């Protein structure tokens, strides 16, 4: 069920990636990728490790420049990091000398916004992530899962319109991974951010997303596009249901097909 382009066709896209190509020296990492993302959508980029999907994410974040093509957010081209985009990395990358609360407030401090205006919001986010009681703790006193939750809070503190997530749960164990996925969806539904989620896990992509783009191997291209029509809020038992399995199978087939050529 490969769709043309997509879902809320009448809304103008929040993020537009147009014919983007990326060369590292002579090597082509990304070839002619075009993506439209509408406001509030949860989009996953699914593909094998090292297929260039993280590179694409870093280009949207403004850290890497595309060789060709354009990336625009709300109509303005991305030329560097911007306050309405936040990134959650594979590792939590918290600063070890700052408490969890001070880590969450780091983006506020960097923009020289008044800290006191954001403390309440930070505590709210930590409460939503169920780690409020660790606000005054240092990162190494928390488990890997709790640290990653804190880094999600940090990404949300400035209420960005787009949240970019680069395999954020791949360093966690399988059980923690499922739990934190549910938490993420809960936080996402409360805030209704646009999320672009890079993953190599079929289960994760099917469970979290509204829409999944299957990326082919280097050079990365969009090999297939799927709408995930599972009801929200999604729960862990849903992963046992036939509808979920159906989506997983479709995604797996598309990934295998993208490997053939």
């Amino acid at each position: 069920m490969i769709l043309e382009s997509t879902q809320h066709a009448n809304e103008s896209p929040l993020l537009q990636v147009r014919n983007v190509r990326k060369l590292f020296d002579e090597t082509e990492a990304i070839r002619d990728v075009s993506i439209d993302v509408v406001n509030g959508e949860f989009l996953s980029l699914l593909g094998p490790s090292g297929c260039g999907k993280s590179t694409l994410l870093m280009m949207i974040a403004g850290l890497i420049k595309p060789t060709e093509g354009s990336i625009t957010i709300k109509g303005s081209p991305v030329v560097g990091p911007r306050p309405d985009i936040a990134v959650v990395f594979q590792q939590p990358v918290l600063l070890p000398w700052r408490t969890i609360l001070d880590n969450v407030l780091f983006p506020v401090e960097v923009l020289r916004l008044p800290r006191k205006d954001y403390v309440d919001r930070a505590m709210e986010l930590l409460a939503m992530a169920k780690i409020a009681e660790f606000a005054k703790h240092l990162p190494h006193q928390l488990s890997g899962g709790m640290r990653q939750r804190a880094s999600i809070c940090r990404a949300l503190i400035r209420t960005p319109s787009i949240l970019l997530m680069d395999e954020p749960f791949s360093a966690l164990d399988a059980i923690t991974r499922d739990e934190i996925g549910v938490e993420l969806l809960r936080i996402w539904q409360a805030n209704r951010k646009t999320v672009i989620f890079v993953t190599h896990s079929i289960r994760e992509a099917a469970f979290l997303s509204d829409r999944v783009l299957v990326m082919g191997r280097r050079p990365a291209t969009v090999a297939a596009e799927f709408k995930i029509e599972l009801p929200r809020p999604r729960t862990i038992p849903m992963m046992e249901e036939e509808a979920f399995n159906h989506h997983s199978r479709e995604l797996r087939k598309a990934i295998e097909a993208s490997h053939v050529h």
Partner: protein
Amino acid sequence: MSTKAKKQLDAIFWPSLITILLLLIWEGFVRVFQVRSILLPAPSEIAVTIIRQWDVVSKHLWPSLYLTVVGFFLSVVSGILVAILVTYSDIVRKGFYPVIIVSQVIPKIAIAPLFIVWFGTGATSSLLLAVLIAFFPMTINAAMGFASVDQDIHQMARTFMASRWQIFWKIRMPNALPYIFGGMKISITLAIIGVIVSEFVASQEGIGYLIKLAGGLLDTPLMMAAITALSLSGLALYGIIAAAERYAVFWQTFKDDVK
């Protein structure tokens, strides 16, 4: 008793016991074999000498300690400043830094007489020699600390739009603190060496001068008293830095306690 308190006690108890044992053996050896104090005074005699001749010892100890501390601070400040240049200037990193590292092979103690020729036999020579010796480990450690920022952390800071200035103060500096303290611990001992050596070569005061003078007079107990006072002062200075480190680098101290 908590395991933490027990560990701390262990860390103090065993080295203290060994030290006391060695001093007792020394004392016993001197008494049993009736070693003349001109060759080897007993620990008790050294202690008595420090107390009886404290006015002489302290008169020479303070100027040396003063120069050591000033020299140490100058090398910390200049070391960090040079490390910042190494971090941010390509010319300094590619051109000067290798020269600085290679110049390490020069035994700087051998330059002491040259300093006397240039700057005379006073405090200036002592201070400059102390700085010259103590400066290198400080620079190298601080530069390593500034450069060792995790690539992921750097990228994180950039996505949140931190400026270069903010990345330096909020990330590079705290990240380098453990390295800087490591450098300080080496530098303080080297600063002492620098001061003492230059006092050996030519000076009219200072603990180095007193050691040489007592040696010339074959007053071995006074010589040992001066060495002891100097060593204890060095230990105290090192202890102050180690204590400051535990306080300043709290996130690492804590990690060690957890292990």
